[in-house]
């Protein structure tokens, strides 16, 4: 800005493009826009690089042959033989799905109840504190959950596992999924640890969604003589069902990819699908964590990248669906 001597009012000259650029405004805009691109570039690069790393193995064994067998036998892999594929990953996909399923069955009702209690039932002055405490569950690192899981949770689950094996395990048809014996390290234990880890995530999103429900609905329901529970059901829970679904899928996304805690309690049995949830197994993420730095057989490391690629695909799909649902609910 140029103020000329002897003139009271500063003369403002329209500045050209170059001056504005040098003034930093345009450059600043370019810099922040470029930084925002990093997020998108990272996701795209992840997909490409994992695909490239796994490409040799995919070409050697066939793109989909990994998804059709459950036989993981790196020691039988040779540089030349392509069939049968010694790197079947079906059992890891199964492990990922079954542990996540157990986690969701346990965590979703609890998380929704906790969110409902905090937003509608708890004494007003306790609400923030209770929210913080539930959030603390999310602050505990994964490796600590795994360690705690081995020494505190596994022994505590033993009676429950034994009970499941001796009751549901004896039932025809579904008994296969609960057949004993139960030793501790299992899909079941991994599912319980995952449930504890995803609970605060689901609860936090539910809390936000419950907080956005219309106050007028609550008032209307109360004015009509509804009890507290009825108000919570009619004016808070019902209109939030889509959001709860979104929150649950978000938690599912986290459960699918969780690594260290699962690796520590699942038993890392990689040879085939173990049908019983009380038996040992492995997940997509646990096999990567376990074998990555020791992958010396032909195509072993590439096969782990194939696992990583499919895990990324699953995580992307699940997260995109969840975010869309949550956003749709928030827009209501």
């Amino acid at each position, binding site marked *: 800005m140029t103020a000329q001597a002897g003139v009271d009012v500063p003369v403002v000259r329209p500045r050209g493009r170059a001056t504005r650029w040098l003034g930093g405004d345009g450059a600043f805009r370019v810099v922040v826009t470029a930084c925002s691109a990093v997020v998108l570039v990272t996701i795209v690069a992840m997909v490409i690089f994992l695909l490239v790393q796994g490409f040799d193995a995919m070409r050697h064994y066939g793109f989909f042959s990994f998804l059709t067998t459950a036989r993981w036998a790196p020691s039988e892999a040779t540089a030349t033989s392509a069939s049968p594929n010694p790197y079947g990953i079906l059992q890891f996909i199964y492990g990922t799905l079954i542990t996540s399923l157990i986690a969701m069955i346990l965590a979703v009702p609890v998380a929704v109840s906790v969110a409902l209690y905090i937003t509608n039932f708890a004494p007003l002055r306790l609400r923030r504190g209770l929210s913080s405490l539930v959030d603390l569950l999310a602050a505990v690192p994964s490796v600590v959950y795994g360690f705690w899981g081995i020494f505190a949770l596994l022994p505590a689950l033993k009676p429950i596992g034994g009970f499941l094996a001796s009751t549901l395990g004896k039932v025809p048809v579904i008994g296969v999924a609960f057949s004993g014996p139960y030793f501790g390290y299992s899909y079941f234990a991994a599912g319980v640890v995952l449930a504890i880890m995803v609970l605060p995530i689901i609860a936090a999103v539910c809390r936000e969604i419950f907080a956005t429900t219309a106050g007028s609905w609550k008032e209307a329901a109360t004015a009509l003589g509804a009890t507290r529970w009825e108000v919570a059901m009619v004016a808070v829970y019902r209109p939030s069902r889509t959001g709860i679904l979104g929150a649950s899928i978000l938690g599912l996304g986290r459960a699918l990819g969780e690594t260290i805690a699962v690796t520590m309690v699942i038993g890392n049995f990689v040879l085939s699908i173990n049908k019983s949830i009380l038996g040992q197994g492995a997940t997509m993420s646990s096999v990567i964590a376990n074998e990555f730095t020791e992958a010396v057989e032909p195509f072993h490391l590439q096969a782990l990248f194939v696992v990583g690629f499919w895990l990324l695909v699953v995580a992307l799909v699940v997260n*995109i669906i969840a975010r869309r649902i949550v956003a749709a609910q928030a827009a209501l």
Partner: protein
Amino acid sequence: MTSLAIEIEAYSAKRRRRSAAATTGLLMVMVGVLAVLAWVLLYVAVQGFSALAPSFFVSNPPGNPSALGGGFANGILGSLIVVGLAALIAIPLGILAAIYLAEYGRGRWSNAVGFFTDVLIGIPTIVTGAFVYSVWVIHFGFSGFAGSLALAIVMLPLIVRTTTQMLKLVPDSLREASLALGASRRKTVTRIVLPAALPGIITGLMLAVARAMGETAPLLLTALGNNLFTEVNPGKRMSTLSLQIFDNAISGFKSGQARAWAGALTLVAIVLILTFAARFFARRSRVAQ
């Protein structure tokens, strides 16, 4: 009373009882969740304190993992270096990207960035580790810096999201006043909006750092770990607190597990201190508004 009134009264009583029962049920679930939290924290505290000695913070793990004593000094130092470098990468990038989203972003591109920031938060961190392995470790070997890259990718979307939220909370009247006084947009953002949102932004940064401190999976594939000696060069493979807890926890040696419990307690303490400090800043920001 007529029989109808009695019937209504009975029905109302039943509804009130159901409401009370449901409330009690929810309360019990709440108490159960808090009990799990207490179980985890107390278990770690009890095991940790019984294994913790002052030497834990100044000595490295013994060469023979079955030997008693020793500590995670190199891991704690490694965590500080690896997470510190990650923060140096992720904080400027994250804040600038958030400025774009909150101050400039309109339309498709910014919607896409905002959306995929949330998606990136949900990407499994082991995949992040494998990604950094494929772009960095393959060419330059396992290193503390590779670990930092992986943790930066973990932290970045968390920082972008919280910072964007905090910037959007700054009232538009401040921006308008600044622009009306003739300040450029860049000046408005850096001198007016950022300082106003700073306490909230710091909260988000601390939570992101706390998250990175506890990450283990991506480091297995990048920093790899180094139990033998103290490494301060981030160009070399490096141990972190989380990696040492993992190694020692699954070592099968009582002595190793004792070290891991002391490490777990240290890690939980660091994470909780960061979380509480973050809350403190968050409260200050609310007062400021």
